[in-house]
């Protein structure tokens, strides 16, 4: 499965569907060996990075704005949809962002959303719940009806705990103390979905016919994620 990443070159991106996944390395995360994933969406001719960047920051950032360092991202076209879904997905994601831009917590917890109580009311996030940039992409796709990965059989890797500790240290400046306390209990006990694995899983799913698309397993996503990292290194964007 050849994964072919390209570097984002404002003002244009070559993705006829108008949807891509973008991934960036240290230049954006300011942390070695740490990547960040975002949707890259075209609307009214312009391209936007639509992503969960941090606590309460569900952003919609123009690739033309140098503050968002779009040229540090690599991207691959998201090719799962027909023309109707491609249009609706972009419009829906913008509406989702408009209604939730400052209300989505960042968390190492792999939360399932949305949840409903017994009386069928929509529940807000519980303490310590939220998403990472990668699990946010997964959840957004699930809300839309696309199950990207099979997280039920996702292992907890040794390096996950170290990353979770590091993230919570940084998150403590921006998230409520009660949320940090709740997340500390999860260090080393919850799996981590990595940005490059999300990109790899999407590429794998795109390569399959519609009736053969099943949630991508850890083994496949991990191998595809390694490919993505290799490509990022070759493009000088790791």
């Amino acid at each position: 499965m050849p994964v072919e990443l390209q570097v984002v070159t404002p003002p244009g991106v070559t993705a006829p569907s108008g949807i891509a996944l973008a991934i960036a390395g240290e230049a954006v995360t300011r942390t070695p060996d740490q990547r960040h994933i975002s949707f890259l969406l075209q609307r009214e001719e312009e391209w936007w990075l639509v992503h969960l960047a941090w606590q309460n920051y569900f952003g919609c950032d123009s690739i033309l704005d140098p503050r968002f360092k779009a040229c540090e991202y690599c991207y691959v076209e998201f090719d799962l949809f027909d023309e109707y879904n491609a249009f609706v997905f972009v419009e829906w994601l913008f509406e989702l962002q408009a209604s939730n831009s400052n209300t989505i917590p960042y968390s190492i917890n792999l939360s399932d959303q949305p949840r409903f109580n017994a009386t069928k009311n929509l529940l807000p996030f519980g303490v310590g719940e939220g998403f990472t940039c990668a699990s946010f992409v997964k959840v957004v796709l699930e809300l839309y009806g696309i199950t990207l990965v099979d997280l039920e059989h996702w292992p907890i890797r040794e390096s996950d705990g170290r990353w979770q500790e590091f993230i919570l240290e940084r998150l403590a400046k921006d998230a409520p103390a009660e949320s940090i306390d709740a997340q500390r209990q999860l260090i080393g006990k919850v799996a981590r979905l990595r940005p490059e694995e999300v990109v790899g899983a999407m590429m794998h799913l795109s390569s399959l016919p519609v009736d053969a698309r099943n949630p991508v397993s850890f083994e496949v996503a991990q191998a595809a994620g390694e490919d993505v990292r290799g490509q990022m290194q070759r493009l000088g964007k790791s």
Partner: protein
Amino acid sequence: MNQAREFHPAANPFFTEALSGGGSTRPSHDFRHSPYATDEEFHRPPLKQGKRSVYGHRFPSRDFLTTVLAVVETDSTSGLDCRDWLGAAGTDHTSDRIRFAIFQVNEFEKSGQGKIAARMILRFVEKNFAARDLIAISTFLRAMDAATLSPWSIVAVLRSTFRARHIMPGWKAFLDQARDVLAARHEPVEKILYGLG
């Protein structure tokens, strides 16, 4: 004329705020939302959108469509923008708000503007999800007739409400109807409805 009619992200009332500084901005450290389910929140009824409009109750509910049509026809800026007209047409009553959203969708569909109708649907659904008003979404869903909708709107209805499909009585029926309608129009049904079950 008025960019708000173009539905550009920067014209969205929420985006206008977010992009006024040139892009969405990181909230300050002092900013704290309250996303957690306290007991009080848990039992709180869904938020009601909007306050009484400047028109108050001048327009009785039974004349609602007449009123909207009159407003649309006499106002040169009318573009059937949901935000503007919800405020101007006396939508204190939830039923009116929903009825007007349905009216908008149908009007756009009748005029062959399926993509704009889809945008209306997405905006209505997402705003009500944000307000946790699932009754409004459910009522809206039951009023949708796939036979009169374009594929864009059919997809918008199904995808935007997918997350609450288990608690929306009309969702499965709409999906079944959509499948039949799309097949009759020789659309690639499986690809369009991929993942929806």
